[in-house]
């Protein structure tokens, strides 16, 4: 046996590979157990499909927010810890706009302007649901995107632009500072109380839906908006000049510079798209959950990071798939573990995948 061969054998039998193999065995065992439970009737089919549906709903939102994080990761080359608070910014600005529009003549300006900080403007009185107030909710959605983009662009102008030449870790630390400042600025203005902002979601009942007999229309709005935006990002990346430039810059920044790609403009577009999607994701999360709180995005951030890392940093499609995997993992894991440990399952999955495949599922090429 030549030296090269024995080395290759050594590499295949490394502890990491062994661990990865064990992990794969665990997943296979879990899958077999799932089938067994379904066949024996220990787990009702209806319960399982509900887990799956919730997983997809959560996954799409995480994926939507993850696109922006993945873009800033590959184009600006740093892990942006303030991304979660851009999600929060979208949630608060969007719902404030929805309340301003939808609450005319119903509630006082002060309650609407500060999104119920004083406890006024009960969501029931406002009838804040998609069928009763469609215009207010769409205005809120658009405002969420616009305000978040403006906030992200001003932060870039104030802070990140001065640090373009700094290393990834320096930018990461600065983004932690941005995250803290932004989150507690929101808490300062809107108070730190958690409150409900949407009315009970209307249900659409139909026999043709396979997994259940009624669909929550807020969840449906969320799924459709997320899918449409993801399609839009896909078309933009593949078929526009800007998309090509972004992919080129993500792949090789220096090469992009010498081929005359206006990198500052690409950075600008990255913030516009990434922050816009983050803002919309925050707004839609609140539409689904019904409650808003100042650390909403911060607690989502780790799941978003998990999605980006799972998919492979820099890959937009990886971020979407990673989001779905994380969403499904948090919900389907409920088959085996209590609900207060479902995020543990998601983070555990992220760490496990990193051991098995450090570059992520779609990693290897850092191209959008």
């Amino acid at each position, binding site marked *: 046996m030549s030296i090269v061969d024995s080395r290759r054998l050594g590499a295949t039998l490394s*502890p*990491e590979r062994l*661990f990865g193999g064990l992990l794969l065995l665990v997943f296979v065992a879990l899958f077999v157990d799932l089938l067994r439970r379904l066949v024996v009737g220990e787990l009702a089919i209806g319960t399982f499909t509900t887990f799956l549906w919730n997983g997809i709903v959560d996954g799409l939102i995480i994926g939507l927010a993850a696109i922006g994080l993945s873009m800033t990761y590959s184009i600006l080359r*740093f*892990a942006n810890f303030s991304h979660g608070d851009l999600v929060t910014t979208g949630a608060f600005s969007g719902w404030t706009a929805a309340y301003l529009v939808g609450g005319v003549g119903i509630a006082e300006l*002060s309650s609407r*302007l*500060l999104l119920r*900080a*004083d406890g006024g403007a009960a969501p029931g009185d406002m009838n804040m649901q998609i069928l009763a107030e469609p215009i207010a909710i769409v205005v809120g959605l658009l405002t969420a995107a616009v305000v978040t983009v403006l906030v992200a662009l001003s932060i870039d102008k104030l*802070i990140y632009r*001065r*640090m373009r030449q*700094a290393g*990834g*870790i*320096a*930018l*990461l*630390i*600065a983004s*932690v*500072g*941005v*995250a*803290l*400042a*932004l*989150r*507690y*600025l929101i*808490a*300062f*203005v809107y*108070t*730190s109380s958690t409150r409900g902002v949407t009315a009970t979601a209307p249900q659409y009942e139909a026999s043709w839906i396979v997994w259940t007999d009624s669909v929550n229309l807020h969840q449906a709005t969320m799924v459709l908006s997320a899918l449409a935006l993801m399609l839009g990002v896909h078309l933009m990346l593949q078929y526009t000049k800007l998309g090509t430039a972004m992919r080129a810059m993500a792949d090789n920044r220096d090469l992009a510079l010498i081929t005359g790609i206006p990198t500052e403009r690409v950075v600008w577009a990255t913030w516009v798209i990434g922050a816009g999607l983050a803002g919309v994701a925050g707004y839609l999360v609140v539409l689904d959950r019904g409650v808003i709180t100042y650390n909403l995005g911060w607690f989502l951030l*780790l799941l978003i*990071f*998990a999605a980006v*890392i799972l998919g492979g*940093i820099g890959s937009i499609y990886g971020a979407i798939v990673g989001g779905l995997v994380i969403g499904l993992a948090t919900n389907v894991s409920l088959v085996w*573990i*209590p609900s*207060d*440990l479902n*995020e*543990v399952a998601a*983070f*555990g999955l*992220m*760490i496990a995948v*990193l*051991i098995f495949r*450090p570059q992520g599922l779609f990693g290897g090429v850092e191209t959008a």
Partner: protein
Amino acid sequence: MSASDRIGGRISDARRAVEERTEGFSRWQVDLLLVFGFLLASYVLFVLFGLALGLSLNGIVSTLRRVTYFAAVYAILTLALNLHWGYTGLFNIGVAGFMAVGVYAMAILTAPVDGSPAGLGLPLPVGIVGGMAAAALVGLVAALPALRLRADYFAIVTLGLSEIIRLSVLSGSLREFEVAGLELGTGGGSGISFTATNSVIPWLLDLPVLSALGDALFAVGAAVGIQSSVIQSALYTLVLLACVIALYVLLARIAYSPFGRVLKAIREDELAARSLGKHTKTTKITVFMLGCALMGLGGILWQGGRGFVTPDSFLPILTFYVFVALIIGGAGSNAGSIVGGIVFAAALWEGPPFVRRIVDANLSVRSPPTIYDAVVAADPLALLGYAVGNLDQIRFMLVGVVLILLMLWRPDGVLGHRKEIAAATDLSRRPRTTATAADGGREESDE
């Protein structure tokens, strides 16, 4: 010249002036001066605060005790993080998680057997050593996969791990469990009670010589009006200070040992260190475990004094506090870590509540319930009242802004990333007559 350059330049000027004035001292003497200077400055600040509030001597001593306590616990945690990040370049943002492991392991080891949740009822020293060992062990488990990753991936994995730990101890399913016939538990969201670490003070005061000293101290305290409870807490704070000094000595020894040189080599260029035959992987795992054990110790000394702990004490933001302290002091410097701990505890942690108390005492403003009411009132005092009423939020914002400004203007902190002298003689100290040097006679700086 931008404002940032100007301020950065001014800080450098001030630093150079300090260096020139301390020419005759060796580096550790300068460090000692700096640490005591910052400690003294914060004491002066809080004595002034206390006088402004009209506190009694007892109140002022109690305040200084509190500041010292937080300065000490942050210094311990910052020293441990400095070992990871400052010396080895391991970007660990799971500090809160390793603290939690240390505290919870100690809690389970020392909690009474008939308590709720029950523990093992072991003595305190076993608990402390066990807690540190548990934190080191979790560090090992984390290090094995995570150290193969890029720095930013590593950061996120450690943060994820710290959340896994926090959510696990919070979980109702681990509230009480049975291992090999033993009833154990984390207490879930309602927390766990255990033997408090400050119970060493009564134990120390029972020793032959110390008891006489203690009695004398209490007598003096009673004479000048300092309560015995304040003295008891002050004695525990002294124990913490002793830990800081011991840790500083240990880490300084490590930094100047061959092992420490490997750490710095890994920080600067891991590939080069490996190609020179250093076992970088084993070194990184060892140093990671050591740092985690010290983070566990920091957690134990901090939370252990209360004899009760809940998962809420280990939110991820705690990690970033330690990072702010480290960056203020400057990564890569042990003395800087202590300075950072002092500055963080005094200026960012204990200072703002005092500002609120002083404003509350001197201005009779009622805080409006919302910012809308404050703005509509069109009264600067109403706005001030709202700001003071929401000082916690402002304090967090301040931490964020300080972090941003430091990264923009002074990423190396007060004492960061100093060049370490590897040669037997100090080659950087050349005669200052370099007018004919090839570099055009620019003055050599020591940095």
